[in-house]
């Protein structure tokens, strides 16, 4: 554990670029506090930004005009709020068997916040999109330590960029964004993995050709057809790989770690569930290794993109008790029983099985 400026202690995976995940106790609530929210960077030259001089440049060959938006300008647009999960594409990579190279995240490369900002669509309306525009590309103010290293640039298909839920946020849980979560403004792409949520947003370009570069391909790719994702990014797909898009339905037991000691009798197991924005429909829990299942109780619904809390009461008998949990979303998708292996370690939504030792 190590503390970054402005943060509670997080699990340090790397100093530079900074990659820090949230430990399990920080997921006790469906909103993750700002100072407990995980940190993920690809590049290590991360400037401190003064909101008074901060600008977002908007243009590109797919736009009819170009403009610059200041931080004050942003606040003049209609403001919207949304509660949404930001989960790193590689969350749980460290659990992959066989192991794959990369940041070895455990369960905590994710968080859920109430984001406030402006619709990306409203900003794009300022310049106007040509009918040939196919993608919207984003860059942030951070850069590589070495100038030959590819800058971190990501794009979205136009349909996702103009979705009313896609925001440029300047507040997180009622406060300015923490430096390490993208101050002063970042992209919010509800339902999609964190790779698209550009921090320290500096440029927005409408494109008539697909965005190239390392971070679009070969990075952040999944094998075509391996996962049951609905949202596709067709202008970036090829015969074998597709960009990662929406999150798969998943859950996390937050009240107990594997091997936890508990008292004999009634035990409340708690956790969170989320998906790519269809909404969590049900959580099933099993105490007999998956032979029989019963429904957990769902907690507050903060919206279809939010963490959904749940709880399940079991009667612990002396000795070993196991709890398995499986989330189902509103389009009927469930977690998997075994890992769907892929070379980057993405989309691990294997059902957890946690052992509780009662004595």
């Amino acid at each position: 554990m190590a503390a970054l400026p402005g943060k509670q202690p997080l699990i340090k995976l790397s100093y530079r670029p900074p990659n820090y995940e949230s430990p399990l106790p920080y997921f006790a609530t469906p909103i993750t506090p700002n100072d407990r929210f995980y940190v993920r960077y690809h590049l290590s030259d991360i400037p401190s930004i003064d909101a008074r001089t901060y600008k977002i440049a908007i243009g590109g060959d797919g736009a009819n005009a170009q403009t610059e938006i200041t931080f004050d300008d942003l606040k003049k647009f209609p403001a919207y709020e949304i509660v949404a999960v930001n989960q790193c594409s590689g969350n749980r990579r460290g659990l992959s068997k066989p192991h794959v190279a990369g940041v070895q995240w455990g369960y905590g490369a994710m968080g859920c916040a109430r984001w406030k900002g402006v619709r990306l669509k409203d900003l794009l309306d300022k310049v106007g999109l040509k009918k040939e525009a196919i993608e919207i590309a984003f860059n942030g103010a951070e850069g590589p330590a070495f100038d030959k290293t590819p800058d971190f640039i990501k794009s979205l298909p136009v349909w996702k960029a103009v979705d009313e839920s896609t925001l440029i946020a300047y507040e997180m849980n009622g406060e300015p964004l923490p430096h390490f979560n993208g101050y002063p403004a970042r992209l919010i792409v509800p339902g999609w993995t964190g790779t698209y949520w550009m921090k320290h947003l500096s440029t927005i370009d409408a494109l008539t050709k697909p965005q190239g570069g390392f971070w679009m391909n070969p990075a952040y790719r999944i094998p075509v057809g391996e996962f049951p994702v609905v949202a596709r990014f067709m202008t970036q797909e090829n015969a074998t790989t597709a960009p990662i898009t929406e999150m798969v339905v998943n859950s996390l037991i937050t009240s107990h770690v594997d091997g936890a000691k508990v008292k004999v009798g009634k035990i409340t197991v708690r956790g969170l569930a989320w998906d790519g924005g269809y909404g969590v429909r049900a959580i099933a829990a099993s105490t007999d290794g998956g032979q029989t299942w019963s429904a957990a109780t769902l907690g507050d619904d903060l919206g279809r993109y939010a963490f959904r809390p749940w709880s399940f009461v079991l009667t612990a008998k002396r000795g070993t008790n196991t709890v398995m949990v499986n989330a189902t979303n509103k389009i009927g998708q469930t977690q998997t029983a075994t890992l769907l292996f892929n070379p980057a370690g993405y989309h691990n939504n294997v059902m957890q099985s946690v052992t509780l030792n009662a004595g």
Partner: protein
Amino acid sequence: MRFVVFAMIAAFAGATAASAEEKPIELKPGPGLDKVEGNCAACHSLDYIQMNSPFLSAAGWDAEVTKMIKAFGAPITDADAKLIADYLTKNYGR
């Protein structure tokens, strides 16, 4: 060369008040360690190496070094690349 690298790290650490405090990472001693410190640490902290140990085979570490050169543009000579990959395989390979 090592002095230059540490000076660069110090420059990063002191760049802004919001920077992370980076503690020195002590890697295992062995032939090639100077090349690892001199090349790899210019762009990322050396805990990346510990984090990916001991899961990578010789081919896996070789692919990582190649990725740093080909995809990330690291200016590492062929001779140094081999010394680095050998060091990583011997000390942090599976």
